[in-house]
């Protein structure tokens, strides 16, 4: 079976090479048959990648340990859900996932544009085929996911327990979908440059792909944050880790791209800027994949020291040099069709927002690569920590939110001072009111930055509400519809605009959550024995009793032993509730720990328990102290090392029971963080807005049908003998 997988990869490589060659030859020689053949080769590539993935997945499901990948990352006792997803926990598997997603996306976009963009599409096909070919070459040449073992082990290593979290398993495909999705607009931008067709056609054809990619990438980042918050046991959602930064950078530049293409569509400006942005986004997406996999920067994510770092760097360098040369050679064709009339115009604010987003990305880039920079400059490797990132990004984020409030209501070309006043009177009043309420009712006054953020956020929300209100009341005046109908029709008719507003609202809700939770977080680390009580952020928390369970891990991650605690928390109003933080213990395959000891001395992961709330979260984690069991475990290793599995299970149960009856003081961490739920809610709102904006509108469908019809008409006319 593994042979079939490898064959799929090899055939895929040949297909990609053929697709690139055929499209290029076809468009150069004006031979439409080759162009069509090149496009169909991409469909064929998608089928081959699906085949390869199916082979690998079936190996994971059957726990066929003759596959090196399966033996490494899965085991018979890994739950089925995690067997399916173990593929992308490994380097080779995630390369295959990249290639699969790329071929599927490319097929979709090439199918949708098969009757339009005759000039650009063949070049885009070639670019996509080359990118896919690179990933296939990596797999065929260095990291074959279908590598086999001559002596398959009886049991696999199992999936890293830290990765056994539902969010973690959806997070990589989401991120990859985002990364891969941005290669579509990149490919079409390159096609547009090569053919000197630098109007807005390539943007119209691919902007929905860019939006979908942006949505997936953003969702992936949010899921990563959620995983960090609920699984990593430190209680934060963002740590400015190199790999987190690597996913944020293309997202930021992609956000800038989504905004600035509107300027090109409406006013024919910012053409150079747009192609640069999409090139930068794609390169950063490649860099993101490279950072996760190369381990060049120290990171908790560096799950594998890589063998393919050099190849990646060479490819990235080729993409950068090639695209830059192409842009420079096409500069004469990228002239603006219009000039900026006034700084008080929408295009000026789009430009400002772009500059702030790119500046944010630059700051993050500098901080992420600082260890390399400092080593090159001073000779010693040094790094900057989260405080540095926070200090530099906070002011930029504030400016960004302020621009978000102003941009949408400023008209194209220019706005008069009277118009500005009309647009901002109500929102500014709303923001001032928020300021007063926040000062009077909350402790926000102690943190000026958080206070400023909440004022700006109120401004943005007021602007969004005002836009909806004005649009809907205009519809009501024209059509006489009742409010709900007027609103829904307003959104349905202008999905992109109002979806965008909803996304804005979501982003500021998210920022409010970040501001609240980072400015007013209260954290306590304490060591407690059963019966002890401590205070944290207005809660009285009592450690009631210890727990020890076998095979009953709540999260379904397959951990055999779980030690935990029952905590009773009481808030200011006297309301009580129970929290059950625990810690899962996974057996190690290390024989030196003994037959019994290996169950206690393997990996362990925190299973935190969170009381979610709109106002604040109470987050708890436990680190039980099982050192008192060391003596008995040694004894048990000696006595029951060769006993049957049933006896050993009884011994383990007895040891666990011993801990439950007489636990040593355990270490607890309790975090009370206000508004942290708003981060997830805000993320959900952004997702909703993005879906509304990306959903095909009836008008667009109509346009497509018309263009198909006219294309057919044109063909028929040409086919007619003259």
């Amino acid at each position, binding site marked *: 079976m593994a042979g079939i997988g490898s064959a799929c990869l090899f055939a895929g490589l040949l297909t990609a090479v053929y697709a690139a060659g055929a499209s290029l030859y076809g468009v150069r020689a004006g031979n439409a048959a080759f162009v069509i053949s090149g496009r169909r080769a991409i469909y064929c590539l998608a089928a081959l990648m699906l085949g390869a993935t199916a082979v690998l997945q079936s190996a994971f499901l059957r726990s066929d340990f003759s596959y090196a990948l399966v033996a490494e990352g899965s085991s018979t006792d890994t739950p089925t859900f995690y067997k399916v997803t173990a593929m992308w926990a490994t380097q080779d598997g995630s390369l295959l996932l990249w290639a699969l997603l790329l071929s599927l996306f490319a097929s979709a976009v090439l199918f949708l544009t098969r009757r339009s963009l005759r000039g650009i599409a063949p070049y885009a096909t070639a670019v996509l085929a080359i990118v896919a070919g690179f990933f296939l070459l990596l797999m065929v040449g260095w990291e074959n996911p279908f590598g086999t073992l001559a002596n398959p082990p009886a049991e696999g290593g199992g999936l890293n327990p830290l990765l056994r979290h539902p969010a973690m398993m959806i997070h990589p495909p989401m991120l990859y979908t985002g990364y891969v999705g941005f290669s579509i607009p990149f490919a079409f931008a390159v096609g547009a440059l090569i053919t000197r067709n630098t109007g807005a056609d390539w943007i119209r054809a691919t902007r929905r792909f860019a939006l979908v990619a942006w949505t997936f990438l953003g969702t992936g980042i949010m899921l990563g944050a959620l995983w960090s918050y609920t699984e990593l046991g430190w209680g934060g959602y963002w740590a400015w880790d190199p790999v987190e930064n690597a996913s944020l950078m293309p997202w930021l530049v992609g956000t800038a791209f989504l905004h600035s293409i509107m300027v090109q569509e409406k006013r024919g400006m910012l053409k150079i800027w747009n192609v640069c942005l999409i090139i930068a986004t794609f390169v950063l997406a490649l860099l993101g994949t490279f950072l996760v996999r190369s381990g060049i920067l120290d990171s908790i994510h560096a799950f594998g020291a890589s063998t393919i770092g050099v190849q990646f760097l060479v490819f990235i360098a080729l993409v950068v040099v090639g695209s830059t040369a192409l842009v420079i050679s096409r500069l004469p064709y990228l002239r603006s069709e219009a000039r900026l009339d006034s700084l008080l115009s929408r295009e000026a604010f789009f430009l400002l927002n772009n500059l702030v987003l790119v500046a944010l990305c630059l700051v993050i880039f500098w901080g992420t690569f600082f260890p390399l920079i400092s080593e090159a400059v001073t000779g010693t490797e040094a790094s900057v920590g989260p*405080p540095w990132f926070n200090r530099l990004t906070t002011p930029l984020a504030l400016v960004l939110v302020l621009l978000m409030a102003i941009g949408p209501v400023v008209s194209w070309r220019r706005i008069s001072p009277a118009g500005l006043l009309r647009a901002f009177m109500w929102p500014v009043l709303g923001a001032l009111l928020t300021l007063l309420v926040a000062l009077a009712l909350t402790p926000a006054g102690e943190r000026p930055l958080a206070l400023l953020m909440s004022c700006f956020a109120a401004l943005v929300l007021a602007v969004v509400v005002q836009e909806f209100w004005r649009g809907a009341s205009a519809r009501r005046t024209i059509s006489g519809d009742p409010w709900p109908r007027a609103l829904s029709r307003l959104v349905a008719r202008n999905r992109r605009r109002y979806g965008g507003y909803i996304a804005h609202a979501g982003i500021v809700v998210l920022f409010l959550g970040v501001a609240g939770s980072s400015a007013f977080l209260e954290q306590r680390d304490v060591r407690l024995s059963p019966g002890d009580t401590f205070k944290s952020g207005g809660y009285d928390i009592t450690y009631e009793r210890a727990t020890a369970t076998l095979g009953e891990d709540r999260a379904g991650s397959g951990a055999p032993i779980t030690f935990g605690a029952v905590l009773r928390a009481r808030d200011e109003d006297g309301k009580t509730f129970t929290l059950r933080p625990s810690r899962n213990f996974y057996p190690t395959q290390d024989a030196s720990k003994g037959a019994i000891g290996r169950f206690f001395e393997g990996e362990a992961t925190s299973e935190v328990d969170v009381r979610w709330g709109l106002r604040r979260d109470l987050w708890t984690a436990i680190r039980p102290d099982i050192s008192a069991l060391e003596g008995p475990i040694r004894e048990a290793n000696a006595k029951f090392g060769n006993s049957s599995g049933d006896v050993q299970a009884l011994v383990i149960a007895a040891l666990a029971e011993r801990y439950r009856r007489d636990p040593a003081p355990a*270490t607890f961490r309790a975090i009370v963080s206000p508004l942290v739920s708003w981060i997830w809610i805000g993320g959900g709102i952004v997702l909703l807005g993005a879906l509304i904006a990306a959903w095909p509108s009836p008008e667009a469908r109509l346009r497509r049908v018309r263009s198909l019809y006219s294309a057919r008409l044109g063909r028929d006319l040409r086919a007619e003998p003259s």
Partner: protein
Amino acid sequence: MDPSRKRTLRLVVALGAALILAGALIYTSFSASTEASTPSQVVASAEPGRSYELTGKVARQSVARDDDRLRFVIRDRDGKAAVPVSYEGVVPDPFREGREVIVSGEMKNGTFVAERDSLVTKCPSKFTKEQTVNRGT
């Protein structure tokens, strides 16, 4: 003002802002950075008050709890020098004796006093090819 002068002015303002940002970036990053070092470097030449990012292996049989503080010893990879560390805060799940860790802090009276929550554990050995090979060491 005539339009071309206005544009020049805008360009100058934009470039000025970019330069200020770049300056801030460079200045703050070099002044706020922590130096990465190994135990032998810290032992040989640690300046008091300077913060370091210490990388090395947690020595066997060295981990002890002292109330809320965690005490352990970090060794060079080749085992030449060792530094005692005093740490407070959350301990990452994969933290074990014999594993490679990174921790930030400064030297005080021969002990490396770590910043709260700065402990990072490098990848769990079980899941990487390279370290599977090295497990015997």
